[in-house]
């Protein structure tokens, strides 16, 4: 791997940037691997990278049906934060945030992490109590979290509508200074390049059509590029988790829903933080190109359409205009949806399964991007040691039988 640096940039400028090498190889699949990861999104690529880097397991393939980072990794609103209420969630999301903080250097790839802070607004007494409870829980877990009063909010966001007669007046906010945004594509590409450099084969345009077992253990997968044998297989496919798990005879507590996002036309810098509101339900940040990046909740019914309903767009835009009346004149440039996999407790699954050598990472729902490095790190540990790390042990598939759910519905600072 050629190291990216200011010197390589200058050197390549001299040849008009025509001689940059490919960031990763595109090999044909070998007939056998130690570990196969199904799904070349951020989580799958991160898993491959940490398997190679932390555990020395380099005979690994990442099998992707389309192109890497083309699913939810490239469709989210790029928000990163770890201000979750419950201890289990706080631990895994903060692990992820810590990894994000060193990731550009670690991968030698600029993921454009911008720790501009994440603000969660309170619009009523209940919101205020919930926010203060969460701030205190965060502080006990060593996560930076503070309360902002209306004066402070107005200082940070002069354009926000602080009128006391607003339908949803703003009474306060929680703020996590270490939160922010990162370039989502760069996270996928950075992990891909670094994993490839350590020997991982990234195989795109290769659909998995079956998972074969032998005596209670995984044996191989059928793909559109032939049969590939593996000692261990991990399913990391987000919205299509139910379909891939079904190939191994596993039923999941997952429903797949469209989650929409959109961007406005680009404008000059106007919002320097990430603003989220649970009650009126929208979240907004501004991209480096100047577009407002907007997101909200999932559509109401399960679907694989990657499209979503117009009433959800209408709802989140009205929420945006409620908070920032001056945005009412902006035009929306693009709208899209990804298919997200939602668990009954709105918490993910990073777990072994009843089949030896088969692991599953799914259920990230609406919050997967922020967890990308932490999720990969935990799954890599689980695969390499054949037992979960203490961070992801609570996120096992068995919790739906034992009842030890991690109920983040409404607890996680924003509704799902």
């Amino acid at each position, binding site marked *: 791997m050629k190291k990216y640096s200011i010197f390589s940039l200058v050197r390549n400028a001299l040849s008009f940037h025509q001689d940059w090498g490919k960031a990763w190889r595109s090999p044909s699949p070998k007939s056998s691997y130690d570990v196969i990861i199904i799904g070349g999104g951020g989580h799958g690529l991160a898993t491959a990278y940490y398997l190679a880097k932390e555990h020395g397991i380099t005979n690994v393939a990442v099998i992707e049906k389309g192109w890497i980072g083309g699913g939810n990794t490239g469709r989210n609103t790029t928000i990163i934060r770890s201000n979750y209420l419950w201890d289990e969630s706080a631990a895994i999301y903060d692990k992820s945030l810590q990894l994000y903080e060193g990731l550009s250097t670690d991968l030698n790839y600029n993921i454009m992490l911008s720790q501009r802070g994440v603000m969660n607004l309170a619009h009523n007494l209940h919101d205020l109590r919930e926010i203060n409870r969460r701030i205190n829980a965060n502080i006990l877990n060593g996560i930076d979290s503070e309360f902002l009063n209306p004066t402070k909010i107005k200082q940070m966001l002069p354009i926000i509508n602080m009128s006391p007669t607003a339908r949803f007046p703003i009474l306060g906010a929680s703020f996590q200074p270490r939160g922010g945004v990162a370039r989502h594509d760069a996270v996928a590409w950075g992990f891909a390049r670094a994993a490839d450099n350590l020997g991982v084969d990234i195989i795109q345009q290769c659909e998995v059509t079956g998972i074969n077992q032998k005596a209670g253990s995984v044996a191989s997968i059928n793909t559109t590029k032939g049969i590939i044998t593996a000692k261990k297989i991990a399913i990391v496919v987000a919205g*299509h988790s*139910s*379909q891939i798990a079904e190939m191994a005879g596993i*039923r*999941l*507590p*997952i*429903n*797949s829903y469209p989650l929409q996002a959109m961007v406005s036309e680009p404008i000059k810098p106007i919002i320097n933080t990430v603003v989220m509101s649970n009650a009126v339900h929208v979240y907004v940040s501004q991209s480096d190109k100047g577009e407002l990046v907007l997101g909200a909740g999932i559509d*109401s*019914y*399960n*679907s*694989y*359409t990657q*499209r979503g*309903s*117009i*009433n959800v767009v209408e709802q989140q835009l009205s929420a945006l205009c409620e908070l920032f009346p001056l945005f009412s004149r902006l035009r929306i440039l693009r709208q899209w949806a990804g298919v997200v996999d939602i668990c*009954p407790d709105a918490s993910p699954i990073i777990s072994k399964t009843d089949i030896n050598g088969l692991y599953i990472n799914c259920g990230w729902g609406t919050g997967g991007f922020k967890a990308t490095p932490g999720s990969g790190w935990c799954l890599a540990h689980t695969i390499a040691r054949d037992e979960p790390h203490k961070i992801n042990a609570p996120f096992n598939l068995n919790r*739906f*039988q*034992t009842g030890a759910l991690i109920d983040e519905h409404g607890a996680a600072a924003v509704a799902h």
Partner: protein
Amino acid sequence: MLMISCPWCGCREETEFQHGGEAHIKRPEKPETLSDASWAEYLFMETNNKGIYLERWAHRYGCRRWFNVARNTITNEILAIYKIGENPPSKVR
């Protein structure tokens, strides 16, 4: 936006309705005799299939009555609407 034909009120916009999840899931008759795994299967496990999906809807801001819908989850096309207690029409089975 979906246009859904309530069996009682006729064709209305999706925003009048509430999605009620998968249809035809029977509550086990003797839950106390079930294993934890069987109870979890009833309570949490989902079909979540790609293709024809049988689901319940309630006309929340209309007549407030429940009914069943057969919908293709790849296209969102509604293939059949039938009342609670009825079996799905043969074309979507």
